[in-house]
Structure formats: C-alpha cells, structure tokens
C-alpha cells in the first residue's frame, strides 16, 4: 500500500498545525480549517531548499502579502470575511542561487454569516405545510414571520449577558451565534409528545394544521402557541419534540444571517431522532438538546447515526423523500471537501475526529 501523507494529515498528526514540506520552502499555519472570523498565522521558512535563499515571498489569495530576505517569515492574515465556503490558496516562493522553489496549498475558509435572504414559504395552508411533500425549510422555518427574528435577537442578548460579551461581539462571530442559539433553545424549550402538540395546535386556532408525517411544528408557531397556558401540558416557554427543537434552532440561526449551507436538520437511520448539524469551529458539528459543547466529543447515544438531511435549500423533509445524499454531499468534514481523507460518516462530526 502506498502511503503518502497529505498536508492535512500531517497537520492532524501535529495537533492542528498544517505543514507542507518536501524539496521546497515550508509553510506552517496555526489553523487547518479556520472560519472567517479568525486570523491565520503563516510561518514560512526556506525548508529543504538548497543553497542560500535571497528572498522568501508569501502569496495569499493571489497576492504577495509578505516578503523577506531573511530565512523565515511570519505573517498574520485575516480575518477573511470575503471568503464564504471557499478555499483560500497560498503559495511560498523561495528564491535561491538554484532558482525559485515554491510550495502551494490552500485553507478552507468558511464564513456562514451575513446571508440575509430567505425563500418565501409556499405551503398550501397559508404558507405552512399541508402534506408531507410540503415539509420544506421555507415552510417550516418561516423567516417571513417577525417573531422568529425577535427571538433570534433574544438569543443574542441572553448569550451576551451570560458570557459578558457585547451584542457586537456576538453578532461578529459565527461560532458565538451557534452557541447563543443552542443555549437559547435549551433554556426556553422542553419536550412534549406530538400527540399533545397536535392538541395544543387545535386548541389555539390551528385545527387545520395538517403537515403530514411526524407533525413538525413551524418555528413561528413553536414560538407563539406551543407554550400556551390553556393546555396543562405547557411547562416551558416553548414545547415540542426532537424535530421541533431542531427546526427552531435552524430558523433562529437563519434569522441571524446564517447561510443555508451551514445548518442542517438531520435524521438518524433507522429513523429515531432529529437534530442539527451545523458549521461550528471550522467543521460541521452536532447540535442537539443542550449547549453545543455537549456534543463536541464522542459520546454514547445510539441516536446521532446521522444519515438523512434537509435544510432551507434541500428537501423536503418527509419520509417519502428522505435523502441521504443531501447530507453526505454537503457536510464533509472538513467543509468544502474530503480533506480529512475519509468517506463521509456521522462519526466525522466529533471534535476528536475532526479537531
């Protein structure tokens, strides 16, 4: 078997540091897969280039950003807000009396922020799904409803208060947004069976709500009627079962400007539970009951055999159209490619697999 260590693999072996080497100048970065909110430190040196190096140049994103006549060079780039779900190419040039040697590579820059668009709901029941086939992201996230934005703001405020941050700091960092939403839903929502959820909808003017398979609750109605007091089953601000929590998390993140490609609703195979997979700390991670931290490392739930996926742009959700490929083809760790060298699997979401 031929074993050729890739830059990414070497990086992983070195605990998150990426190095390119060979008969070429070396490049080392402090992050393998930074998100766009973070700076990236490039350390370059003559590496294994023979002879005296008279000039060392670093090119990032197609432009020379630093150069030196010394044998090593450190450059801090970023944050890189202009890149969104894209690769950032870099190249080092070492000029010596033997000619010019180069080393090239790229970093994946993922910035899920600033996506302030949504697809208008088209469900045949006032925009809500009226059948399994209509269980789409737009019909369930309901970003046209002001209440979704209101609670997204609440999530930012509560997280800022809890962490001693400013609203500016929270809104400037995609990872903070994810943490804020996970925390908000955990703090304000409790589990209730679909049997009772159906009853609550009927008791609050939504007798006609008939979405088909599994009774998913639209985010706006979770926020407005699921915790209504005229049902003794309401013990929290919002109530619902697994998919209702996941739909609300995705909707709140979208309302904060999170891009559709970065947040997924995910169902196990065999079907047992629904939750989210979200871009966090530069890779796709699990998001379920509790804070995002809870699911970062390998754990013991039989659930989370992530298999089927849907989101604002892919679906619908319902059984007849459950689609494994949407998730498999769009959430590779690391995002944007198969750079960890493995085929897609649900275990790839854990921090101890994808640091």
């Amino acid at each position, binding site marked *: 078997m031929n074993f050729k260590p890739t830059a990414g693999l070497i990086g992983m072996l070195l605990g998150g540091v990426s190095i390119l080497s060979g008969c070429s100048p070396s490049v080392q970065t402090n992050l393998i897969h930074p998100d766009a909110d973070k700076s990236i430190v490039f350390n370059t040196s003559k590496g294994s280039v023979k002879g005296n190096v008279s000039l060392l140049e670093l090119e990032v994103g197609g432009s020379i950003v630093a150069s030196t006549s010394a044998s090593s060079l450190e450059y801090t780039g970023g944050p890189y807000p202009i890149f969104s779900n894209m690769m950032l190419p870099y190249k080092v040039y070492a000029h010596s009396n033997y000619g010019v040697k180069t080393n090239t590579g790229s970093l994946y820059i993922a910035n899920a922020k600033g996506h302030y668009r949504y697809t208008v709901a088209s469900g045949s029941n006032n925009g809500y799904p009226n059948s399994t086939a209509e269980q789409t992201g737009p019909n369930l996230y309901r970003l046209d409803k002001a209440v979704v934005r209101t609670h997204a703001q609440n999530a930012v405020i509560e997280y800022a208060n809890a962490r001693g941050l400013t609203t500016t700091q929270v809104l400037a960092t995609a990872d903070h947004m994810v943490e804020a939403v996970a925390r908000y839903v955990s703090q304000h929502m409790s589990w209730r069976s679909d049997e009772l959820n159906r009853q609550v909808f009927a008791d609050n003017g939504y007798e006609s709500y008939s979405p088909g398979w599994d009774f998913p609750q639209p985010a706006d109605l979770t926020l407005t009627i699921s915790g209504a007091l005229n049902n003794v089953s309401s013990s929290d601000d919002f109530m619902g*079962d697994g998919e209702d929590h996941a739909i609300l998390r995705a909707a709140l993140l979208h309302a904060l400007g999170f891009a559709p490609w970065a947040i997924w609703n995910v169902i196990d195979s065999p079907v047992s539970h629904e939750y989210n997979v979200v871009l966090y700390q530069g890779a796709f991670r699990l998001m379920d009951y509790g804070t995002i931290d809870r699911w970062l490392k390998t754990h013991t739930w039989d659930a989370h055999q992530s298999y089927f996926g849907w989101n604002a742009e892919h679906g619908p959700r319902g059984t007849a159209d459950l689609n494994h490929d949407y998730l498999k083809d769009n959430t590779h760790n690391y995002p944007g490619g198969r750079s960890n060298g493995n085929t897609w699997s649900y275990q790839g979401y854990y921090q101890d697999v994808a640091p």
Partner: protein
Amino acid sequence: MNWLRMMGCLVGVIVSASTLAVEQKISTMDVGPADIIITHMEGRIALQDGAAPTTDITLTITNSSEKNFTGTIGFRGGDSQPITLARGNTATIAVAPDVQYRGERGHIQKAAIDLTILMDGDLPQNAVESVNVAVSLPDGGSPLMKATPPLIENEGAVPSYILFSRGQYTSPLTMLYTMAPVNVRIHKTLMPNPIKEGPVTVSLTLTNVGKETAKGLIIKDSLDPRDFSGEGEGFTLYQGEVNDQRLLWEHTLESLGAGEKTTISYEVIANGAVHDVALDAASVIVDQELAGISNKVWLHK
C-alpha cells in the same frame, strides 16, 4: 439571468427561474450607535387579574460621543421616540413597552413585557448600566409561579418584586402568575450533580403558597431515555409516533395544605455522564389546570 438577479436585488426580491422559488431579503442584524448609552431604566409594572399589566417606565440616556445624536430610542414592538441629544448630554424619556397577555381572570395568567431596547431599530451596542423596575401582583395574588429573567422577591403578605440588574442587556420579562386558590411552588434538584454513570436522585420540593388546600395534585416530570433509565411505579417509557421517545414520571399527591411543604423523590439511573443541558421543568396539575412549574436544572460538568 444576471440582469434579473440584479434587478431582484434592487427591489429586494430575487426570482430564480429554474425553481420558481421566490427569495426575499431578511432584515440584517445590526447594532445601534456606540456611544449612546442607557444609563438607567426605572419604573413599575403592575400585573392585573384578567387584563394586561400596566407599565410606567423611563429610560435615562447619555450621549457620550463627540457628536450630537438624532435618532429613535424605545422598546422593541412598543413605543419608540425620536430623540435629539447633544454631545455629553443626558435625557430621561418615558416609553411604553409592548405587552402581551394571556389567561383568564381568576386562573393562571401569563404576561410578557418586552424590555428589549432598540436604537434606530437595532439592538444597542452597550448594556444598560442599571435597571430597577418594581413589579406588583394583583390584589389578592399569590407569589409568582415563574419569572424570566428572575426577579428579586420582597416577602410579605402580598409579595412584591424587583427587576434589578447592573451592566446587562434588557430582554423580555415573562411572568407566570395565578389568581386560583392553589399555587404550588416547586424546587427541583438532582443529586449528584455533576452526573456520572449510576444512580441519581431527583427531588421535588413542593410548597403550597396558595390560599387553599390543594387536592389531587398530579406531579409530572420527564427525562430523556437516552440519558436516564427508570423503572417501577410512576415511570412510563413513551414511544413517540415516529421519531422521539421520553421517560415520563408521574405521581399523585392526595393533598397539600396552604403553607404546607413536602419533598418527593424518585431515582433514575444515568446511562453515562450527562452535562451541558437543562433538564425539563417538572409540573403540578390540579383540577385540570397548571398549578406549578419547577425550575429547570442545569447539569454542569
């Protein structure tokens, strides 16, 4: 298609011909001016029996910038006032928040007062330096069942409350209260916490802070069966219609006199370490009406 897309941006709508999906712009999440600071929020909120609460709230605003400020300041969904404030100046304005109310006279009621401040329609950059808002119950009311964020309670024949904070952003104040004769305060605890694999005791301390004896109290709690298992009297493993399940626990208490307190415990087995999650609140139902909600227990590492 590019010209169509460009035109879509100009009018705020993008039409994709391939799918016929219609895209709409969403409001951006921005923050207000940096040096306009709410230095103080003060006032009172009076809960009512069978009606929305009344409010009387003022904001003290300081312009600590080098420029004069002209803009709007107010509560989200409520009153918003145009204001001009010269640099270095301070002003106090009265603003009415949005108030939502649900419930029925003589029964359980819920009031939500949105104290989220907006500046020019955006969240403020700075937290409110100090907040001191008094909250009163209706005549004859018993203690609040729940308040988010938590209030400071002044005990008395009729308790009163204060929303008090320093250096926090303000957010919706949601209060659950009842005018029914029965009001059960529940405090939920877990031992041990942090939780490792093994037995865990859940304790529910019930205090009847209402005026009459409560009879036939149905106490309900629920846990995730992927985290906990429980067997025996009171436990049901609920299998959802399609894709969810729950470990339900229920217990009936014959009666609890006014002012009386009792603790009920049950044991479950933690299937592993459980942390970084808030357990659901337990609840008490009397005569088909919610009579009490517990705290949500945060499981830490």
